[in-house]
Every structure is written in C-alpha cells, then in structure tokens.
C-alpha cells in the first residue's frame, strides 16, 4: 500500500499566497535585522582599524561613521539590534516549549516591536 496516490499531492503554500500575519512578519524581520547588521559591524571594525592606524586615517573613518549617513545606518542598526535581541529572547523562551500558542506568540511579537522602539529611544538618549 506504500505507493497509493503518489504524485498530484498539494504543495506547501508559498509566501505570496499567505496573508501577512504578525507571527510570520516578526519571524522574517528577525532574519532581516540579523543579516543587515553586517553593514554596521563592518563599519565598526573599520573604525577600530582606523583608530589603531593613525590620527589621519581615524578622522576619515570617524568622519564617515559620524556623518548623517553613518548616523542613519547606526540608528537603524541599533533599532535592528534591539529587535533582533528581543526576538532572540523570544526564541530562547520558545526553545523550552513555552509560549508557542498563537495568542502568546502574538503578544511576544508586539513586545519585540514595542520593546525595540523603547530600547532604541533609551539608547539614543543615553549615547547622544
């Protein structure tokens, strides 16, 4: 009986036909923020290398990192960093089999969004 009704089976639904949901969007956002932070991380490494090289080279790297464009990258990276951090905490909770039901998962999703905005404001105030 192993070969009954092989083929012509339904495929998994794709992203394009799924209605966007808080749980899927917060999951995708975790991946986007985690990988996008590479830009800021490389900028920071370059900044450290320049500081370790010479005062002239430091002024070039520091000028770029603290320019309006650098500030923009750093601001969104801090927002992404706190979002990714809170989403990571959510995964550490989920790993224990806790909070996987939809109402709790959605509450945790809103906590990640709201918490990351709040932590970003605190960071901007603290380091500005």
């Amino acid at each position: 009986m192993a070969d009954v009704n092989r083929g012509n089976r339904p495929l998994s639904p794709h992203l394009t036909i799924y209605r966007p949901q808080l749980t899927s969007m917060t999951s995708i956002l975790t991946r986007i923020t985690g990988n996008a932070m590479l830009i800021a991380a490389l900028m920071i490494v370059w900044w450290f290398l320049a500081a370790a090289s010479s005062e002239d080279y430091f002024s070039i790297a520091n000028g770029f990192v603290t320019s309006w464009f650098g500030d923009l990258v750093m601001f969104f990276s801090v927002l992404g960093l706190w979002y990714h951090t809170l989403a990571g905490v959510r995964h550490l909770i989920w790993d224990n089999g806790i909070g996987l039901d939809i109402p709790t998962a959605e509450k945790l999703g809103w906590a990640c969004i709201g918490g990351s905005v709040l932590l970003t404001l605190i960071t901007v105030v603290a380091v500005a």
Partner: protein
Amino acid sequence: MAYLTDRKRAMGLGSAKTGTEHFWAMKVSSVALLILIPLFVFTFGAALGGAYEEIIAYYSRPGPAIIAALTLVVGFKHFNDGVQTLIEDYVPGTSQKVAIILMTCLSYGAAAVGVFAIAKLAL
C-alpha cells in the same frame, strides 16, 4: 522498489541529517551576546563621537577593550552561523557552497581585524 515502505525510501534523503551542533552553537552565542550587546552598545556608544585622543584613552582601558573584542568575536561567529542558514534556505547548488565559504572568510576575517585593532589600541 514497490516493496519499500515510504519511510524506508525517505530515510537518509532529508536535508536535516545534522544540525544539533549548529542549533546549540547558536544558542550559546545568543546567550553570550545577550550579556555582551548591552555592555557594548553603551560603552561604544559613549566613545563614538569623541576626539582621537579620547578614543585612544578610552580603549586603553581594559573594560571597554575586552567588551568590544569579545562582542566582535562572538558577534561574528553568531552572524556566520546565522548567514549560513540564510544561504542554505535561498541559494542552491555550487553558489550555496561558494557563498557560505565567502561569508565564513568575511566573518572570521572581520573578527580578526577588529581584535587586532582593539589590541593595538589597548596596548
């Protein structure tokens, strides 16, 4: 073939032959970063925008220097494990292997450059 059960036919063919170690590495680095990231954000954030002499003096202190070096090492390891999963999900075939190798070289390279620079600043 007809006598093979579905389970027997599928065994060993799935994508998930391994992965526990990757999951565990991700878990360890994420918990480490949970401690390191707030420390790094508020030390690096305090230093950024300072003059050259201030930066040199600040990163000559062991605390900020060790926090920054550890954050870069653990952060790039965590990034490398994460981006590997991203590539495995979206890039097929040989390009997948090339992309994983490139991102691994970039991750370890950037971490090494960062640690070298911080050590040079601190000493």
